[in-house]
């Protein structure tokens, strides 16, 4: 067991029991990233945010009701990401919260989901002090870009394989969560390169710590919750999924 893990675990446990029992582990805090990486992550993230903005701008011209829809679903995903999920590994003693990007990517598409994630991260950085302004680019990369695209593609692949709606949603939620944590681990792992450390070792250690504490289970739980959400909406109001383009009208009834 690497030494880092031995000391890092207690810190994570401390974080669970602090702040009203909620762990917000996937945001990189203000001041952590050095200037070079701040610029690199902003440069990587801005084109995606730009394309997302362009998508919304074009679509709202054609469908005027699109802007309120994205705003409202964005707010819903933000609230969804605040759900306190009990972590079974800790016997429900602590709670963690889902990323929500997998669900937003399924509902809104990956580029618009990146834009929604960027705005959600800005709100969290400013008004909840989770994440930061200089680390916004890095957080958009891990949570917005990696989370949205991985979740969206997982959902599409599952649909292509004709998996039931629940399992498609499960894969979207779980894979997006996994990639978000992988992204954060990569960003933190890259910091050791300048000092001659091993990037792969550091990334693997940080990712391992994420997975060994509550976040590994959270990925699975978020997948289950997203699956339930989609099935629930499909049972009650299939027209919502139809309007959002998640299901097609001409398909035979979906397996749930």
């Amino acid at each position: 067991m690497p030494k880092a893990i031995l000391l890092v675990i207690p810190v994570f446990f401390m974080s669970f029991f602090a702040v009203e029992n909620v762990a917000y582990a996937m945001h990189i805090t203000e001041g952590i990233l050095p200037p070079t990486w701040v610029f690199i992550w902003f440069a990587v993230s801005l084109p995606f945010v730009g394309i997302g903005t362009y998508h919304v701008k074009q679509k709202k011209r054609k469908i005027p009701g699109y802007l309120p829809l994205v705003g409202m679903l964005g707010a819903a995903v933000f609230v969804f990401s605040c759900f306190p999920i009990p972590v079974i590994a800790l016997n429900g003693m602590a709670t963690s919260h889902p990323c929500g990007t997998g669900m937003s990517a399924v509902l809104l598409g990956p580029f618009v989901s990146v834009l929604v994630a960027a705005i959600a991260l800005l709100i969290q950085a400013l008004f909840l002090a989770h994440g930061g302004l200089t680390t916004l680019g890095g957080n958009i990369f891990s949570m917005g870009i990696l989370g949205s695209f991985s979740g969206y593609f997982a959902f599409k692949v599952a649909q292509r394989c004709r998996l039931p709606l629940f399992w498609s949603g499960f894969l979207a939620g779980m894979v997006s969560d996994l990639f978000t944590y992988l992204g954060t681990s990569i960003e933190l792992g890259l910091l050791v390169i300048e000092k001659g450390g091993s990037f792969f070792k550091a990334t693997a250690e940080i990712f391992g710590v994420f997975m060994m504490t509550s976040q590994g289970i959270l990925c699975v739980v978020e997948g289950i919750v997203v699956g339930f959400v989609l099935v629930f909406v499909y049972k009650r109001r299939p027209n919502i999924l139809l309007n959002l383009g998640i299901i097609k009208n001409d398909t035979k009834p979906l397996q749930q």
Partner: protein
Amino acid sequence: MEFLHHTFSDVYARQNNWLTRVDVRVKLFYAISLLSINLWAKNMFIPLLFLSASFILLFSIKIPPMAILRSMLLPVLFAMLILLVKGLHEGEKVWLSFPILGYKVVLKEEGLHSGLHIGSKVLGGISLVITFSFTTTISRLCAALKWFHVPNTIIELLAFMYRYIFLLLDEVSTMWTAQKSRLGHASWKKTIQSLGTLGGLLVMRAFDRAERTYEAMHVRGYEGGGILTVNLSPWRKGEYASFIGMVLILPMLVYTGNIHAW
């Protein structure tokens, strides 16, 4: 879930005090410039200076210490994690070594030094951000972003999302309490199923509300164009004085931040 209402720092931004009255563009200029200096600082003096100055400013407008500490707790924990990782991985000079469960833990001086430097930057940076957010409402921020030519679509979405987060939070809190009181959270499995139902209802309500909001906007003449109407007034003497003051202080702070010292 109710705790989020109290955690959102703009509750304090709606108060009337000398810092909330400062023009939002000046505050934004200050916040971004000082965050940049904090980012490039080569010593711990500048971040700690920002931390103390922010505390003094926040205490001067009577922000409860607990609200400040609550905002800073998570970043501090993250800084501690970085301090540990750096202390274990960087450098060669042993500062402290001790055994834990048969493993020899070695903390190195250079790594701890670097970890403390980053930790101070975290504290300095986050204190600047919370000083800004404790004194600025979202509507003022949107107006300032418009003045800085941030695309309207982004600002409109920001305003929309922020406006409806609290509304949806209230609805979800009510449903959450109802689920809890009706044994919806009796077991772990039931809790997860209840969360799925809650999420599904959230999506359905958001969709319905979006339709109603669009209808309301449509009858007021909205056809997909811009919806931002708030414009900031031109700068007065006070704003120019604050801006010039910042321009004069900046070189001094940049110079101090570049000194290689603890």
